[in-house]
């Protein structure tokens, strides 16, 4: 068994010698940089597209809020009566709070 182990070990060594480190082709570096640039550009264009989608979504949301949501809130008065009316009503009636919701004029 040990003998086989040793033989296998020497076969690994022979294999290492039989497969020396190859030299890179002359195109290796230019091609590598071309691939890096291509990946960089695709990442940038993806980010740009994503940013554009975000900008469009933000503008749409702003438009919807300014034309539909905010005006609808502005049209609804919070109180039906003024502060002076409330004070008057409070003096004359115990149910002063009813003025607030418009039950008493």
């Amino acid at each position, binding site marked *: 068994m040990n003998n086989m182990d040793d033989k296998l*070990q020497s*076969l*690994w060594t022979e294999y290492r010698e*039989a*497969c020396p480190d*190859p030299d890179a082709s002359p195109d290796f570096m230019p*091609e590598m940089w071309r691939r890096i640039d291509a990946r960089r550009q695709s990442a940038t264009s993806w980010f740009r597209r994503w940013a554009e989608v975000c900008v469009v979504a933000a503008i749409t949301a702003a438009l919807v809020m300014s034309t539909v949501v905010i005006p609808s809130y502005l049209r609804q008065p919070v109180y039906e009566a003024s502060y002076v009316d409330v004070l008057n009503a409070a003096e004359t009636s115990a149910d002063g709070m009813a003025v607030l919701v418009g039950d008493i004029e």
Partner: protein
Amino acid sequence: MLVEFELIERARRGDDAAFNQVVQAYRKRILGTIARLIGRPEDVDDVGQEVFLRLYFSLDQLRAPEVFEPWLYRLTVNAAYDYLRRQKRRPETRMSDLSEQQVMMADAAAGGKFQTEETRRAKIRERVQSLLGHVSEEDRILLTLKEVEGLSLKELEQVYKVNENALKVRLFRARQRVLKAFESEEK
């Protein structure tokens, strides 16, 4: 380390010239490892470029320049493994093609000594690739890194990010399988 930490640090900060120097320093070694892992010389450059491409885009994740080499080996192993999975072909077939091609090259060459030496090398390559065909792609890569590339268990631990005992068990099993195939070939 084949380069100074400072050069790796510069490359990590986005200095393309520094990155170029790092690639040039490690290129030959990495291409050699890839050649022995995938066993197909015509694709070595392609896989090598993929390794350095992955390195370029992951350098910012490198915690410290001291772990650069295991990091680079990890990228190499992953790229080689991805390649082997894509190919889905057993390496012994590829190596048979290679040896035939090299024998033809050797025949064409005038020197008889060169021919004999190249034929011997081709036979060794073919034999080892055939033996490694008895284990899975993962174990084939692990065994090659340990036995052929000469990585220590500590280095393999950093490459694979698993503990030493798990690696020892896996290596032992893979080695036993190869040894069994080797013994039956010897008989």
